[in-house]
């Protein structure tokens, strides 16, 4: 697809974009709601807060001291790399009109992405606000994957992998679910081709963000193999304290992620906000109760893992269900992800270092399906124009569409990720050497150490 985008054309676009303003920028007099824009800018900031420092802290606390900086950098680097990719191609491939499976290239370099609203996406905020808000989603998604290959992947390989992944896995997924004419986008029904052919409900990215990252995570850790000496060697988190701080920031940031997906500051945002919070709370309890049954103790790591699981599972549902349904979804997700992380992983013995699959893959999948169960037309009319939307409301067919969404997300992620991994492996190699892994990735990949506590050093 990229081939059709000749160098000449790109260059033209580039220079154009650099000198000329964003199209229609001058039409600042458009019917923009400053209240909505205020909320969307705040939400964009909150979603970035999720990646840095949120996820960076959550993940870095779970690795060994010698890999703490590398783990944080796998998040921080995305804030830089994905931003540029997004401005150049990503946005265009995901949100410009194009095909049912991927967008076009005429909005490369944000050409034509102006300050007037694009009613298809959001009628009351500048199109650029929507663009940057979506960018924040594109940043955190590959960062989530890094949890699976933590402590053993070359930093250069990580950069190459995520770059290709954004273009060939994330952008298509985003386009299918949210883009103009997207196959799974119910708002695209009747837009020709296969637009909205499988209208599935994904409010804030259960499929686009969590299934795609979680499943790709599984593929990556299987392809990469276990960490040296795993599971015999001691891989205890070097600081659950840092992880807990990170989890809190993820929770707070998630309000921007879900309630922001209402793309306005009205009642729908309120619903999404409450559902997000309720599911996180219920999932924390769900996970902890499972732990309690097994060990008679509530652990801090368990509590925060549960919270994240709930936040993941409610993501696709947050704008479609009632608060009480959110509690139910959270409770189920907390217990289910516990089972995936504790039992399934141990059973199959793959080394998903920080459980990116167990939490995001599993949580995203169950969330997407439960969205079909609990979706309620009173919260969101959807393409059903107010008629029953969810299974419990009496519209079982939605379950099929949800399943279709899940299936496609799994397929795209598995195939795409596998191809990219092989490619990168062949070109530059994915994994650090044994000595590098023993010495730690902070020293070998970045030439730094995370901490200099010792008296010795002063």
């Amino acid at each position: 697809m990229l081939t059709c985008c000749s160098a000449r054309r790109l260059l033209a676009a580039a220079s154009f974009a650099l000198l000329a303003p964003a199209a229609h920028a001058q039409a600042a007099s458009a019917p923009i709601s400053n209240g909505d824009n205020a909320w969307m800018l705040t939400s964009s900031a909150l979603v970035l807060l999720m990646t840095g420092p949120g996820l960076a802290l959550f993940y870095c606390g779970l690795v060994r001291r010698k890999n703490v900086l590398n783990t944080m950098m796998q998040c921080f680097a995305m804030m830089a790399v994905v931003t540029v990719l997004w401005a150049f191609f990503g946005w265009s491939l995901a949100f410009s009109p194009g095909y049912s499976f991927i967008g076009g290239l005429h909005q490369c370099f944000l050409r034509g992405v102006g300050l007037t609203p694009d009613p298809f996406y959001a009628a009351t905020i500048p199109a650029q606000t929507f663009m940057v808000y979506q960018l924040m989603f594109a940043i955190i998604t590959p960062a989530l994957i890094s949890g699976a290959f933590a402590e053993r992947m070359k930093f250069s390989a990580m950069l190459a992998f995520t770059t290709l992944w954004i273009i060939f896995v994330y952008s298509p997924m985003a386009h299918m679910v949210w883009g103009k004419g997207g196959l799974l986008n119910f708002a695209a029904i009747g837009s020709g081709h296969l637009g909205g052919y499988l209208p599935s409900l994904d409010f804030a990215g259960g499929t686009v963000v969590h299934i795609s990252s979680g499943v790709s995570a599984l593929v990556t850790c299987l392809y990469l193999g276990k960490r040296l000496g795993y599971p015999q060697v001691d891989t205890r988190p070097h600081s659950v304290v840092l992880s807990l701080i990170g989890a809190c920031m993820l929770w707070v940031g998630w309000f921007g992620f879900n309630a922001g997906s209402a793309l306005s500051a009205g009642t729908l945002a309120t619903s999404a906000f409450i559902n997000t919070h309720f599911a996180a709370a219920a999932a924390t309890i769900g996970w902890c109760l499972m732990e309690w049954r097994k060990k008679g103790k509530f652990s801090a790591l368990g509590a925060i893992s549960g919270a994240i699981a709930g936040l993941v599972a409610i993501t696709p549902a947050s704008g479609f269900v009632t608060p009480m349904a959110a509690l139910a979804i959270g409770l189920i997700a907390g217990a289910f992800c516990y089972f995936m992380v504790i039992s399934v992983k141990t059973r199959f013995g793959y080394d998903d270092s920080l459980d990116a699959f167990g939490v995001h893959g599993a949580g995203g999948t169950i969330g997407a399906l439960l969205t079909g169960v609990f979706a309620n037309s009173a919260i969101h009319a959807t393409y059903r124009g107010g008629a029953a939307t969810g299974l419990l409301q009496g519209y079982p067919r939605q379950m099929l569409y949800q399943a279709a969404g899940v299936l496609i997300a799994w397929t795209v992620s598995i195939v795409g990720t596998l191809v990219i991994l092989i490619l990168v492996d062949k070109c530059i190699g994915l994994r650090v050497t044994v000595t590098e892994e023993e010495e730690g990735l902070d020293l070998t990949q970045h030439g730094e150490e995370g901490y200099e506590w010792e008296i010795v050093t002063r």
Partner: protein
Amino acid sequence: MQKIEAIIQPSKLDAVKEALIEVGIQGITILEARGHGRQKGHTETYRGREYSVDLLPKLKLEIIVTDDMVDAVVNTIATTARSGKIGDGKIFVSRIDTAIRIRNDERGDNAI
């Protein structure tokens, strides 16, 4: 001159220190240590994975004393560091040939 090395429970440090000062000891060097012995450790669980920790926090005291002080010091430590529970620790005594005070190059017993 003799060197007394005592491995004790961290919680006993203050008591031992006070007692040693009582008997006229002034110089003590303390090192953090991890001990493995009869005392059994604990287990930690992270995301279902259990880790049994059998290296327990201990403190190692090193005290160089003149021969006449050895028994006093050994007994002081033994009694004040004792809880009667497994894990209280050990005391080891060995010879030191010379001691030098860096500040003024004093040697021998009065360097201590």
